[in-house]
């Protein structure tokens, strides 16, 4: 059974009151997520990530298509007792304390009364808010609200957790904690579907990522798969007043900054390049294999189409 099975889900909005214009928020999306997987949904702001999540949560209704969550139709209310959701930049009832808020959400999720309060405290401890449990949320900082948001998403022990930009607005410490939390969830066997526009997060956490832009899915795959196209090249950095002629003959892409030069050559020509350095008595500083990063993939694939044509790939 798939955790999430999205079958050509599609959403467009009508804009304007008198003269209707159609705005496509999500082109038909087909995507399946395995149980126990950590899936990163990548894309720039406004690409359709939040729309997808809202569709799956039943907050907006699809123009066409359907989805199955944990084997059930997505508009089956029962599904949602096994799903946790953290919206982007969450905001909660100002006048409630963190503990009251989690209690309220516990009731709404149908958690049994007897272990609700112990579960709430456990969750507050887990996100590091137990000391502020009795403080009204209007006195919370943005980072603390994000933690409350995480706590409410996993409070009822869901099998599947949706996190919309869980790391945004957090300081480096906070980001690391969220990463750790996602990893813990992964170890507990839960499925995590999170959206982000920050690549390093996805790179560090995800089994697979999907890349979306302008409402369209551009590619899905393991991070390694997507970045594997690094066809064995190395970057050689050395100190030199000028780049030797011989490097150009090797077909290297080289650059000189001050008296530090860098050159990228294919694996096959690595020995020849080093031979040139020895011959010219130039000092080698470093030699690193070039692995195409997710970022490069991202930049290459998500550049506006006309730009890419101009480059002439």
């Amino acid at each position, binding site marked *: 059974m798939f955790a999430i099975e999205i079958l050509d889900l599609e959403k467009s909005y009508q804009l304007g009151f008198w003269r209707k214009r159609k705005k496509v928020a999500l082109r038909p999306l087909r995507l399946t997520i395995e149980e126990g997987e950590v899936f990163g949904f990548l894309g720039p702001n406004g690409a359709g990530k939040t729309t997808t999540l809202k569709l799956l949560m039943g907050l907006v209704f699809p123009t066409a298509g359907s989805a199955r969550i944990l084997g059930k139709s997505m508009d089956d209310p029962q599904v949602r007792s096994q799903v946790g959701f953290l919206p982007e930049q969450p905001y909660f009832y100002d*006048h409630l304390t963190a503990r009251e808020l989690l209690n309220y959400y516990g009731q709404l999720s149908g958690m049994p009364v007897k272990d609700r309060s112990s579960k709430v405290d456990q969750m507050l401890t887990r996100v590091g808010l137990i000391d502020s449990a009795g403080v009204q949320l209007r006195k919370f900082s943005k980072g603390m609200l994000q933690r409350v948001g995480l706590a409410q998403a996993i409070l009822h022990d869901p099998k599947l957790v949706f996190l919309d930009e869980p790391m945004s607005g957090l300081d480096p410490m906070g980001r690391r904690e969220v990463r750790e939390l996602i990893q813990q969830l992964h170890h507990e066997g839960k499925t995590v579907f999170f959206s982000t526009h920050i690549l390093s997060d996805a790179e560090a956490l995800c089994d697979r990522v999907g890349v979306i832009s302008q409402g369209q899915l551009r590619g899905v795959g393991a991070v390694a798969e997507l970045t594997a196209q690094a066809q064995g090249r190395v970057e050689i950095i050395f100190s030199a007043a000028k780049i030797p002629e011989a490097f150009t003959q090797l077909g290297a892409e080289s650059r000189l900054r001050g008296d530090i030069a860098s050159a990228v050559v294919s694996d096959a020509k690595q020995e020849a390049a080093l031979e040139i350095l020895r011959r010219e008595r130039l000092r080698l500083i470093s030699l690193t294999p070039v692995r195409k990063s997710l970022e490069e993939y991202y930049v290459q694939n998500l550049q506006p189409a006309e730009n890419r044509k101009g480059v002439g790939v």
Partner: protein
Amino acid sequence: MSTGRVGSIAFNTFREAVRDRVLYNLIAFALLLSGAAILVGEISIDIERLVVINLGLTAISIFGVLIAIFIGIGLVSKEIDKRTLYTVLSRPVQRWEFVVGKFFGLTGTLVVNTFFMAIGVFLALLYTAHRFDKMDGWVLVALYFIVLQFFIVCALSLFFSSFSTPLMSAVFSFALFIIGNLADDLRGFARMSHGLGGWLATGVAYLVPNFASMNVVSQVAHGDPVGGRLILYNTVYALLYSAMAIAGAVLIFQRRNLK
């Protein structure tokens, strides 16, 4: 299970309203009432009872309607704007449960508010007359009718806020409150007109809320009794009208995409 969820939402709405210092209006009310009771006692003869009841009940009604409208219009739109609704509706909560829960939370707030104000009125009556009269009982009926009006106003402001901006919802709700107080005259107008216009007028006159028959303040101030059948019919009417408005709100809200 669903009564539990509706109850939780209602209680949370109530708690939010109370912590938002809604009940502070009680202080203004108490000052107004005690000030008036003392002042009128000094400058006028024999109408203390009249003034306490008229002023007290009118103030209860106005305060309550203002609270009903200004909280009612924000109940749904505020949760959408602040996206608190996302974390509620992503749980096994149906949208109708949310709307109904909000309605009961707000009416609950108003009932509690009215209860404290009513105590104030009776204390003022006791202060002016030094004892309770049998006809003071009818004041309770007038209070009950005022609460019934709150039910309708709450339901209407929820209804309008399910599809309109808060400002427009407030305008609509307040306009309907005014029109509803003149509803019997409106039905009178409709009876006198004929043809297509007459049909239209009749339709509008019967569809707007009828508050006119629920306003018995001056009647009870003069110690006149209120008929049992009027109590029954007003109750039935208010409950069904609220149900109608809530059902309308649910129908619209169920289809709504939350931006």
